[in-house]
């Protein structure tokens, strides 16, 4: 990758290859459709603005996780206070990221819906951890995103995983 990547091209590549990260994080943090769109826009904006400092040394997915989780955590905290958003009008609404529901199977969709609900009910940090864990990031990558040591990440992941499993207990049975 060149040291100064073409901004537009790189952004397009990121959206093509890693757009799912944005959608998943937004769904895990936003509680309403309006918030979901708002957060997605904010994450995309922050990614766009981060491109000039992206050297290409970091893995794109790790970079995207860092930028998007930072945005989501700060957005979440300021959601009730943040200044009036600059109206983007219809421009960005054209970039609908909610494609048709992913899972064909209704039961699977229901499980996913419950899973997102459970993730949203978790404390912020546990939420960020399970998101990366479910997306199969390595301990090293998670440590890079969070700024913690790998050992610390290991301990925290075990705790977060237990919490999520606990929250999802009985969901499978409910649906049978």
């Amino acid at each position: 990758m060149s040291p100064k990547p073409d901004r537009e091209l790189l952004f397009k590549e990121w959206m093509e290859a890693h757009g799912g990260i944005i959608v998943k994080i937004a769904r895990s943090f936003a509680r309403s459709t309006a918030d979901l769109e708002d957060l997605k826009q904010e994450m995309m904006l922050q990614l766009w603005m981060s491109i000039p400092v992206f050297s290409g040394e970091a893995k794109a997915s790790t970079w995207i996780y860092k930028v998007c989780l930072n945005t989501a955590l700060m957005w979440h905290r300021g959601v009730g206070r943040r200044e009036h958003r600059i109206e983007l009008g219809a421009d960005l609404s054209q970039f609908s990221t909610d494609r048709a529901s992913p899972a064909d199977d209704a039961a699977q969709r229901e499980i996913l819906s419950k899973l997102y609900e459970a993730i949203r009910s978790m404390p912020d940090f546990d939420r960020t951890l399970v998101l990366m864990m479910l997306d199969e990031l390595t301990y090293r990558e998670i440590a890079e995103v969070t700024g913690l040591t790998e050992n610390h990440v290991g301990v925290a992941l075990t705790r977060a995983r237990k919490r999520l499993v606990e929250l999802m207990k009985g969901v499978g049975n409910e649906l049978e």
Partner: protein
Amino acid sequence: MNWNDLTAAWRSQPGESLVDSRLEVLRNTFERRSRKLARRLFWRDIRELVAGLFVAYVLVKEAIRKGVAGWPLWISVLLVLWVTVGFIRERVRAHRGRTEPSAPLLAKIEADISELRRQSDLLLKVGTWYMAPLILGWFIALASTGFHGLNGSLRTPLQMGSYLAGAGVLFFGIWKLNQWVALKKIGPRIAELEELRNSLVSNK
């Protein structure tokens, strides 16, 4: 459900692509928004600068008009400029010290806490670094006129009292507002971020 079931459900989501042929629209929107934000910050700083320079200019003009007798006004000018420069320097420092959005979560949170603490500290101490020099400058300017009004006549005790009371209320209002913002707005935000930071570094 066990962990494997959860990961299986998670993987059933397709890798959604956000690419769109209207990338041009997106780019323009982001660029427009970035420019708007930069413009707003630029004009905010210019306003501070112009206000400070304007007050200094009025005082300088008066000091020159008074000649040697106007020397105390030069102290007022220096005090007003000191506050203005302090304002601008603080803005530049905050701008340069910004953390990149791609910083690790912990570093970003630490940096935000540190910046908010600094803002809170500045607001809580507004009486010393901002208001005291201005009040002193104002009082020097007032005293240097021999407590005469603009038309040269000596102010009556009632006029002086009203003048001082009005200024007192204004300065107290500014001080109170800053305390309120620091304690009610920034304080809870610092607490939230500290809680998040603690959850990150805690193994419990």
